[in-house]
């Protein structure tokens, strides 16, 4: 069976320097460790980020993603290991001499300076001629569509406008790397979605390397070329959004990115290249198509199935159907575009199944307490070795 890695997820553009062994990374973390007293924030981490990449550091709070970014900006020094940027070792280089600029989570706009003075601040530090500064500020204002607000002060702006000023200020010096710390965290949902696409457009237009720290998996999935999922100071997986979602390496990743059902089980063996796994949830063994896993009979594994990859129906599946379980509708959540069913199995486990609401009216919809049958294809699930 051919490997599935290349066909997984949506392909945004043909850009994948990470799979080219000849490509030289722009940023290299080499065995970087950072300790604060006894606490280990970053634990022997190595990572390459390539030029023009839109790279996301994703993880729960306290996973070390912000520390990693602050080490890149120069606000923290690694306890061990080495960080290089464009071949230059960054050890001992103060933040004001690094070719990286940061957009802060709080935006950190200077309250006593107007929008244009804020944007010009970094350029002034470089001692650029006044005319050049003015031209660049105008260019940045146009890029973030704030031409009319140039003379305003930060406290006269809305949250979205402030976010744009912070972005323009960080972009103004055309850094080799732009660091964005939770760039959309303070915006409301609608604005956040719009801004995600704008950030992608800007990044594409400037061809700049973006490194984004976020705890919002949707944000990371939408924007990033690659995502590094972090947990307890280590990288759990670095991959494209599609790979992270469809082929999570660990249970932590499967659960952190998107919704997932986990069924614990034991491997029986392999048949026709498909794994047979015995679980409490199903009277017959489940059949899983995950050829990359190397397993042995009797091994304890977890099966991960995304809610949208299961089919829910009232009638029993045809005899002989693979991966069919029966349960009772425990809860129904109507989200508009999706309906989420929580189905309680005879074994006591509750599975989440989602179904797109393709039509506006459904005759005799599935109701609370009804008996339903769930099925999923062998390649809809992933086996996670414990």
């Amino acid at each position: 069976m051919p490997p599935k890695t290349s066909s997984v997820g949506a392909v945004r553009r043909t850009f994948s320097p990470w799979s080219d062994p000849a490509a030289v990374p722009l940023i290299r973390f080499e065995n970087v460790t950072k300790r604060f007293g006894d606490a280990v924030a970053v634990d022997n981490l190595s990572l390459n980020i390539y030029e023009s990449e839109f790279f996301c550091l994703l993880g729960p709070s306290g996973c070390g993603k912000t520390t990693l970014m602050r080490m890149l900006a120069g606000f923290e020094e690694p306890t061990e290991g080495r960080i290089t940027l464009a071949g230059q070792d960054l050890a001992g280089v103060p933040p004001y001499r690094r070719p990286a600029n940061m957009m802060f989570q709080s935006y950190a706009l200077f309250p006593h300076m107007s929008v244009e003075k804020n944007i010009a601040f970094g350029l002034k530090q470089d001692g650029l001629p006044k005319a050049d500064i003015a031209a660049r500020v105008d260019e940045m204002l146009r890029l973030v569509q704030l031409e009319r607000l140039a003379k305003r002060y930060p406290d006269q702006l809305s949250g979205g406008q402030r976010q744009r000023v912070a972005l323009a200020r960080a972009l103004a010096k055309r850094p080799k790397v732009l660091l964005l710390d939770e760039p959309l965290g303070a915006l409301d949902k609608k604005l956040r979605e719009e801004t995600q696409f704008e950030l992608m457009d800007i990044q594409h237009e400037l061809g700049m390397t973006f490194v984004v720290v976020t705890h919002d998996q949707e944000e990371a999935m939408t924007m990033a070329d690659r995502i590094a999922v972090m947990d307890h100071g280590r990288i759990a997986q670095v991959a494209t959004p599609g790979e992270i979602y469809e082929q999570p390496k660990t249970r932590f990743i499967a659960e952190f990115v998107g919704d997932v059902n986990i069924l614990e089980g034991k491997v029986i063996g392999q048949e026709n290249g498909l794994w047979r796994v015995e679980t409490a949830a199903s009277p017959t063994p489940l059949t899983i198509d995950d050829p990359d896993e190397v397993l042995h009979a009797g091994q304890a594994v977890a099966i991960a199935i995304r809610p949208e990859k299961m089919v829910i129906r009232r009638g029993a599946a045809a005899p002989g159907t693979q991966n069919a379980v029966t349960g009772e509708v425990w809860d129904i959540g109507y989200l508009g575009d999706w309906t989420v069913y929580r189905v309680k199995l005879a074994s006591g486990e509750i599975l989440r199944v989602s179904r797109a609401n393709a039509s506006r009216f459904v005759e005799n919809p599935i109701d609370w307490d009804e008996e339903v049958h769930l099925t999923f294809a062998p390649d809809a699930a992933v086996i996670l070795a414990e």
Partner: protein
Amino acid sequence: MARSLTKRLVSGVVPAVPFLWLVVLFLVPFLIVLKISLSDPVVAQPPYTPVFDWSDIGGFFGKLDLENFEMLVEDGIYLDATLSSVRIAGISTLLLLIVGFPIAYAMARAPVRHRPLLIALIILPFWTSFLIRIYAWVAILKPEGLLNQALMGIGLIHDPIIILNTEAAVYIGIVYAYLPFMVLPLYASLERMDNTLIEAALDLGCPPWRAFWAITVPLAMPGVIAGSLLCFIPAVGEFVIPDLLGGSETLMIGRQLWSEFFSNRDWPLASAVAILLLIILVVPIVIYRDVEARRLETQR
């Protein structure tokens, strides 16, 4: 109904309290002083004419004149004392800023759990009487005092330096006594400052010392102005410090006022000096309010 009445009563009475306070303890005494400043001195009890008399209101107002203020202008000593006071207060305020800013900055950067202790230490001197603390400086600064003994003891000097009864002693006294009034407003504005602003400045290529002038100082400006006014205003009218530490050479308007009042018993002239002092001090306050109003205006 009863509740809304109580509410209305409260909303009427509450703002009236500070107004009443100001009227009784500021406006009325001010009018009395103003009236005395327009009167003539006399050796009597009270030592000024005319005394208020209901039966002759026309005559009462007729006897008021600006003689005392003319006297202030004609006799150079009052103008000299005023200018000297403003100069000493101005230099003292500058010294207070230079001494106070690093202290306030260090306090604002100290770990949060240490800050209440540091603030308590700044306020601690107030537990002892102001007068006693200034007297203590006499013992320190006099020729055979602690400072000279210490300096001679370690062999730095051979003859005592004369500090007491010079203007330098007045500066030392004012800086010492007024330091909390400078440090606390500075601390308040520095503590409120978001440290990520400094990080943002560094990130944009600004070295730390330049970030201090470009970000920290402008954002501390409200504290600088408040602290300067809190020190400058009472320093102009200061009496105890120049009297105890400054010797007879130090000319200040507060001392002039005291000697007119208690030595010469010329209450009308002393009152005129008091009015003059008030006018001098109103000017910086009005300027400050004007500047502040314009700043708020441009930010709107």
